[in-house]
C-alpha cells in the first residue's frame, strides 16, 4: 500500500456529520490514506468517492490516530451499504484504527467489504 497523508480533505465543520472527501484523488487503488487530524471525538466518519474511482477489485485502507471509523460511504452522492468485519482486536486505549476496504463489482452491482483493525500502545 502506498502511504498518502490526507488532512486537506476533512470537513469537520459539522461535528455531527464529519466527512472525508477523496473524490479529487486520481487513483485510490492500493493506497493507505492517513487522516492524522481526525481525533477521538470524531467516532463515525462519512467517506465521499467518485464513480470514476471505482474499478474492479479495488482495495484501499484508511488509518486514523483514534477510535474513528468510516460508517457511511457516498459514491457520486449516493449512499452505498457495505459489509463490515469489526475486528475488535483491541479493547482499551485505542491509539490507531485501520479500516481496509475491498470493492468487488458483480453484474454492475457494487459490493463493498470493510475490515477494521484497532491498535493499542504496546507497553513491553
Amino acid at each position, binding site marked *: *500500500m502506498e*502511504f498518502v*497523508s490526507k488532512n486537506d480533505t476533512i470537513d469537520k465543520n459539522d461535528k455531527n456529520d464529519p466527512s472525508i472527501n477523496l473524490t479529487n484523488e486520481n487513483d485510490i487503488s492500493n493506497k*493507505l490514506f*492517513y487522516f*492524522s487530524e481526525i481525533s477521538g471525538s470524531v467516532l463515525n466518519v462519512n467517506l465521499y468517492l467518485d464513480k470514476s474511482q471505482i474499478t474492479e477489485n479495488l482495495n484501499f485502507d484508511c*488509518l486514523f*490516530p483514534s477510535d474513528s471509523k468510516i460508517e457511511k460511504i457516498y459514491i457520486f452522492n449516493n449512499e452505498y451499504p457495505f459489509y463490515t468485519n469489526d*475486528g475488535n*482486536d*483491541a479493547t482499551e486505549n485505542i*491509539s*490507531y484504527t*485501520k479500516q481496509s476496504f475491498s470493492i468487488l463489482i458483480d453484474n454492475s452491482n457494487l459490493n463493498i467489504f470493510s475490515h477494521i*483493525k*484497532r*491498535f*493499542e*500502545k*504496546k*507497553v*513491553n
Partner: protein
Amino acid sequence: MSYFKGIGRKSGSYKGRKLPLIGLLENKKHTIFNEYTVGSGVGASSVATRRLKKQRARIKKCTPPEPIYPELDENEYFEISDDVNKFDAVLEEQITNMELEKTVDLKGTLNNDVDADVFTTYAISHINEVSKSNDVSSLTFTTTSVANPANVAVDNSTEDNIDKLLSSSDYKVTTSINYEYTDEAPESISQNIEHTFINTGEIDGRLKLIEYIMTITVFETLLKN
C-alpha cells in the same frame, strides 16, 4: 555466501509452515526430479549395471538440489533459513544494505535470536530513512514468522520495551499493536506482521516522533500432523 533464497508466492509459505515433501508424506525416499533413470528401479540388476552403479557412486558428487520453488518475485521476498544460526558481520551488512519495504520470511523458531537481529537491523534501516523527511511520510516492511521477532528482540536486549529498543538520539518511537500472543506462539501458526513506521512530522524537544504500527495477522495451517 548468501543467506537469502528468492522464492515465489506459490511456494506454499502462506499455506502452512511445515509443508513436507511428498516423499515424507509417504514415508519413502523420493526425488524431486521425476525423470526415469536407467538402472534406478527396483528389482535385480545385471552385473554390468551393478558395476556401473558402484563406479557412479564413487565419482558422482552429492550436490544440493536446485530450489524446488519457482523463483517468482525474486528480489521481492527473502527467506532467513532456520539453518542460519549466527547473525555475523556478513549477514548484518546484507540486511543493512537490503532494499527497503520487502517481505522477509523468518521461518520457524530454531534461530529466534538471528531472526530478532534481522528484524531490529531492518527496522532501524526503515526508521532512519523515514526520519530523514520533515514531512509526514511512511515506510512498511513485512515479516512472516512463528514468533514475533520484535518480542524476541526485546527479550534479548537490556531495554524494557520495543520503543526504547528502536528509539535513538534523533527520534522517539511509539509502538501500537493490534494483537499478540500473551504466551509463546504455537509452531502451527504463521504471523504475518506489517511493520509500518510513520514520521508524524511532529517534534518532541529535538526528537522526531515516529509512530510504529505493528499489524499482526495470524494464519493457522489446515494440514494435520
